[in-house]
């Protein structure tokens, strides 16, 4: 049997960036949960991810999924100093807003709002985009994330100087670079393998 593209109907696509919980619908058929091999289950790292169509689809190539997941977790969850979690998530949300990944932006806007308790600033970032007026520190993090996301990459000494001026030490700057760079990985997977949808009522 040859592989086919999966199309969806009857769902409502989000037409704005939102902090609301969204669904994600795959355009290729992910392996069924029951059919995952031991290697594929191991690559998910978190067992709960077997419920996610996105992670099951990525489990089609388990070696890269496993390494990617472990990279992701350390960049965002390693709490040994550096950039606070809220601002790593801010970088992720800013990159997703700039690339146009409505699903990724929703997840990481929520995380940033939760950890920073600055839901209104996050809402304005989603509504107005990456040139939104923010305090100096968040502006520097958003601008650096955007410069790193541009193609060709436009990140250089100006961004480093602005991040230092905003109070980031070198470990925190490295964290911001990694968080922004990682969402240039994540956005491209989410945007090409499926689409966001508003949760169905009921």
């Amino acid at each position, binding site marked *: 049997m040859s592989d086919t593209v999966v199309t969806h109907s009857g769902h409502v696509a989000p037409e704005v960036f939102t902090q609301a919980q969204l669904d994600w619908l795959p355009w290729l058929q992910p392996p069924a949960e029951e059919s995952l091999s031991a290697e594929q289950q191991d690559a998910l790292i978190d067992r709960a991810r077997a419920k996610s169509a996105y992670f099951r689809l990525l489990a089609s190539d388990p070696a*890269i999924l496993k390494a990617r997941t472990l990279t992701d977790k350390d960049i965002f969850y390693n709490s040994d100093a550096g950039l606070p979690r809220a601002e790593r998530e801010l970088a992720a949300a800013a990159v997703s807003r700039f690339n146009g990944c409505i699903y990724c932006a929703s997840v990481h806007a929520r995380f940033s709002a939760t950890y920073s308790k600055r839901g209104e600033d996050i809402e304005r970032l989603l509504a107005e985009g990456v040139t939104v007026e923010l305090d100096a520190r968040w502006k520097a993090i958003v601008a650096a994330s955007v410069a790193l996301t541009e193609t*060709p990459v436009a990140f250089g*000494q100006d961004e480093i100087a602005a991040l230092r001026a905003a109070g980031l030490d070198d470990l925190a700057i490295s964290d911001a670079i990694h968080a922004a760079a990682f969402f240039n990985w994540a956005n491209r997977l989410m945007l090409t393998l499926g689409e966001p949808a508003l949760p169905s009522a009921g």
Partner: protein
Amino acid sequence: MSIKIDVIDQLVGIVPGSSLDLIRRRRGQARDNAQASFDALFAPATPGEVSRIERLAVAAFVAGLTGEPATASFYLAETARLGAATGEAVGRELAQGRTKGPYGRYPDGPLSHETVAGPVYEPDAAAREALGTRLAAAFRHAHLLVLHPRDAAPADLQALLDAGWTTPSIVTLSQIIAFVSFQSRVVAGLIALNATAAEPRSEEAAHV
């Protein structure tokens, strides 16, 4: 203990014991698994349906479009080492495909004023001849994801299926494109940081 090459260190020019080396080792799991990701994509234990030269050629095209010079040179040299003609074809397609991103459409509605127009790259007859149908289709997809990822649609996956790609190999291809997008930016960011790293390098490092 064998000395394991770390590609990001190599591309950035990170000296053992330097402040940037120590910073990367504070995030040891991320450092090790960025390298493990590279290994999984470019030296896979089971090659699967995507050949090594296909993997490297796509990476060279992605890195060349992304424009971080060290990463671009690295993948182009690795590709040319395996196939000089393929390396030349990558160079030709880069000249055709280079542009500024991200651009792309938003659906009709409040975001439609944020739509940014930009070119759609289609490999021409010479590219299809040099790369083959399958790799030419991969380049088309790579250009889409590098420069205007929000334009990606089911029809683009259908085009890959039509060119001989399967569901698992499309996942691998997408990971290659997305990983090199990440890696190029880590390298660009760390080169900028390394140029002005705050702390002096250790005496010991100077003798390595």
